[in-house]
């Protein structure tokens, strides 16, 4: 039988996992409830069960952290999971740092792709006799000609993409570090 102690625990888990999809959250809560009853059947008291499962906040954090898979591959669902992780755990890193660097890293990666495309468009335009003034780079007083712009755009694009990727990897590593910090394993 579920009593108040165990029910309160599940309510807290629900709250901390509110950023997950409904089906996933319901499944997790159902499984925790199942193990509670299993432990109870093996003679554990409600207090012992709660003790074993540990702080509901830490347990939720572990779930949200593990939901962001360990490989560094980029995916939009992982980007969403990072924000889910942040929104459940306030604090400087959750509220500011993580959303900032993860968004910045994606902006850099996108910029890294767009910049060379701009370079190509400008170069093709130049070959066809147009100067597309809307696409340009200014470095101090130096404004590259369409011929120079093409290779420069590729170098800058590659640099931006690389920087974005490094930031992304750091974000994933950081989340794994903080979601495992308090675990005894």
């Amino acid at each position, binding site marked *: 039988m579920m009593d108040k102690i165990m029910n309160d625990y599940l309510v807290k888990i629900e709250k901390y996992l509110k950023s997950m999809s409904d089906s996933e959250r319901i499944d997790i809560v159902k499984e925790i409830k*199942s193990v509670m009853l299993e432990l109870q059947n093996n003679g554990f008291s409600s207090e012992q069960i709660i003790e074993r499962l540990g702080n509901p906040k830490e347990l939720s954090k572990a779930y949200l952290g593990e939901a962001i*898979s360990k490989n560094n591959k980029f995916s939009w669902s992982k980007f969403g999971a990072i924000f889910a992780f942040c929104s459940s755990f306030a604090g400087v890193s959750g509220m500011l740092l993580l959303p900032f660097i993860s968004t910045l890293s994606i902006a850099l990666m996108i910029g890294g792709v767009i910049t060379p495309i701009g370079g190509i468009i400008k170069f093709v335009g130049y070959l066809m006799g147009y100067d597309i003034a809307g696409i340009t780079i200014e470095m101090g007083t130096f404004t590259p000609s369409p011929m120079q712009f093409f290779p420069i755009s590729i170098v800058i694009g590659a640099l931006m993409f690389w920087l974005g990727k490094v930031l992304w990897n750091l974000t994933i590593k950081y989340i794994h570090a903080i979601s495992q910090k308090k675990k005894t*394993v």
Partner: protein
Amino acid sequence: MNVEDWKSQIKRGTLDYCILLLIKQRPYYGYEIISKLEQYPIVAAKENTIYPLLRRLLKEEYISSSWQESTEGLPPRKYYTLTEKGNEYLSAMSVEWDNLLTAISEIKGELNDG
């Protein structure tokens, strides 16, 4: 000297492997996995480690799960089974594990000789 740190690193690095090895034999439910691992202190882990870890293995499609009714008033249990992808991953891990054991035993042997 802190052997506890080293032990926890070993545990963290081998838990995935242990769980996949167990699930390969037959479908297991979470609590069963925890009880089984508790028999071996070097890989024993509590619910707050095992359940999130199972969730990650599910996400990465190495295992699949299904809820099954159990008998006599007990709650339904979520059973985990190995997928084809998980089986491939496990085979690759086994190769590396054997490499590690061979390396360690050879290094030990050389140290003993010297």
